[in-house]
C-alpha cells in the first residue's frame, strides 16, 4: 500500500483545496439537510430524530457517490488515472486517496449532524462510537462500489447518470430518513443490497430509536468486504 500517495492525494486535493472549492462543502450538505427539513415539516417533528440519524448515513453515502463522480472526472477529464497507472500507486491506493480527499469536504456536514444529534438529546457515547464504525463501513463500501462502476464506464455522462441512480437507491428508498419498521421485512431485506439500508437500520438501533437488528451489521460488513475486494481485483486498471 502506497501510504505516501494516499496521504498526499487526500491532503492536496482535499484539505489543501478546501479554500478554492468551498462550494462543494455546501453542496455535500444540501441533499441530506433538505430531506431533514422536509421530513421534519411533514411529520410535524415526530420523525426528526430518524432523519437526523439517517442524515449522517446519507452524508457519508453522498461522500461515496461524490468519490465516484470525482473518479469519473479524474479518468475522463484529467486523464489522471492513466497518469497514476504508470507509478507505484495501486488501484486501492488511488481509490482511498480520492475517497479521503472527498471526506474533507463532508466533514463539516458530519460535524453539523453530530451537533444536531446532541441538541436533540439523542447522541450517547455508545451511539457516537458505533456511528463512526458504521460510517467507515458505509464510506468504504460506497466508494468501492463507485470505483468499480467508474472503471467499467466509457464516458463521463454515464458517471453522472449512475451517480443520479445511486443517490436514489442509496438515499431515498432505504430507511435513512424514516423508521425501518415502516417497511415489510422482505422489503427491508431487498433494500439491504444498498449498504445504506443496514447502516440506517443499525443507526436507528444504536441511537435508541428502534430495536438493534444485529444481523444488519453482518450484512454491512459482508457488503463492505465484497465491494472492497471487487474493487481490488475486478477494477479495470490496465485496460484490455
Amino acid at each position: 500500500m502506497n501510504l505516501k500517495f494516499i496521504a498526499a492525494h487526500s491532503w492536496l486535493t482535499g484539505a489543501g483545496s478546501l479554500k478554492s472549492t468551498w462550494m462543494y462543502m455546501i453542496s455535500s450538505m444540501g441533499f441530506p439537510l433538505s430531506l431533514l427539513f422536509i421530513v421534519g415539516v411533514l411529520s410535524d417533528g415526530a420523525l426528526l430524530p430518524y432523519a437526523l440519524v439517517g442524515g449522517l448515513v446519507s452524508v457519508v453515502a453522498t461522500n461515496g457517490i461524490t468519490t465516484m463522480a470525482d473518479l469519473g472526472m479524474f479518468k475522463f477529464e484529467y486523464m489522471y488515472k492513466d497518469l497514476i497507472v504508470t507509478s507505484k500507486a495501486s488501484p486501492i491506493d488511488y481509490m482511498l486517496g480520492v475517497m479521503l480527499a472527498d471526506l474533507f469536504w463532508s466533514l463539516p456536514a458530519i460535524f453539523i449532524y453530530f451537533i444536531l444529534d446532541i441538541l436533540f438529546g439523542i447522541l450517547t457515547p455508545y451511539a457516537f462510537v458505533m456511528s463512526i464504525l458504521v460510517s467507515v463501513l458505509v464510506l468504504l463500501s460506497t466508494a468501492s462500489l463507485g470505483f468499480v462502476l467508474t472503471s467499467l464506464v466509457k464516458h463521463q455522462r454515464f458517471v453522472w447518470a449512475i451517480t443520479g441512480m445511486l443517490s436514489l437507491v442509496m438515499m431515498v428508498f432505504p430507511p435513512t430518513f424514516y423508521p425501518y419498521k415502516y417497511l415489510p421485512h422482505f422489503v427491508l431485506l431487498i433494500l439491504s443490497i444498498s449498504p445504506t439500508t443496514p447502516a440506517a437500520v443499525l443507526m436507528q438501533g444504536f441511537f435508541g430509536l428502534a430495536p438493534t437488528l444485529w444481523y444488519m451489521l453482518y450484512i454491512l460488513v459482508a457488503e463492505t468486504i465484497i465491494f472492497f475486494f471487487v474493487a481490488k481485483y475486478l477494477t479495470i486498471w490496465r485496460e484490455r
Partner: protein
Amino acid sequence: MIKVNKLTKRYSDKTIALKNVSFKLDKKITSVIGRNGAGKTTLIKILSTQLAPTSGSAFVNGIDVVENPNQVRKIAVSIPQEAKPIDYITPFDAVRLYLSARGVWLHESKKAAEDALKKVGLWDARNKLAYELSGGMKRKVFVAMAIAADAEVVFLDEPTTGLDPFSRVEVWAAIKAIKGQVILTTHYMEEAQALSDDVLMIESGKIIAQGNVKQLLKPFSGLVRIESQKKRHKSYKVGNTWISYVKKAEANSFVGKEDIIKPVTLDDLFIRRGVNLES
C-alpha cells in the same frame, strides 16, 4: 532501451491497432510519428503498462511489460495524451502529488518539484491554480512531473497537440531537459525533426520506417517538394493538391506561377508511402 517483438493489439470491436510490430529503441529521444489512428497511442499505452497487448512481447529496460508491469511502473513515467493538471491545485502541488505516487513523501518532494518547475520555466506560476494556466503551461506541468520523477524511461503521448507554435517550442525545450530515455508520439513532423535522435514511423498499425531524420530523408536528397493544383508526371494527390519532387536546381524552371516550392520533410515519406499503399 525498448525492445518490442511481434506485438499485436486487437480491440474488442475487432479493430487491429498494431499488427505484429517489432523494433528496438535505444536513442535518447525517439519520436513515434504517424497519422491519427495509426497506432501510436496504443503502442505507448502498451509500453507504459496501461493496456494489455493481444500477443507478442515488449520490454522496457529488460523488464517484460506483460509479465512484470509493476516493475516497469517503477522505472517509467507516462504522460497521457490530453492530460490536464487537476484544476484546483497548483503546479507545485501537482508535481509533488505525482512524486508521492512514485513513492516520495510529500515533505521530501519539495526540492525536486522546485527544481523541475524552474527547468520548465514555471517557477513564477508555481502557486497559481491550474485552471489559471495557459495550455502550454499546463503541458509543461506534466513535463515537470517527468523531470522531477527522474525516471529511466519517459513516455509522452502527443505532448504538444493543440498548442500554439511558441508554446510548442517551449515544451520542446522542457522535453530536452528530461534525463531519461524519452519516447514521444506526435503527428507534427517538424516536432520529430526538432527533437529526435531516432524516428519510428507507423502507419495502420505497422512500422514503415525507422532511423534518424537524416537517414529517413536520404531518398529525397537534393530534392524539393512542389505543390501544385495540376497533375504532373509522377505526382501524388493529397486532398486537392498534387505533390511532386524535383531537383532543387531545376525547381524554379519547373514550377508554374501558382505552384509552391517547399523543402522536403518527414511528411513526404508518408505522402510517398500513402500513394504506394493505394497503388
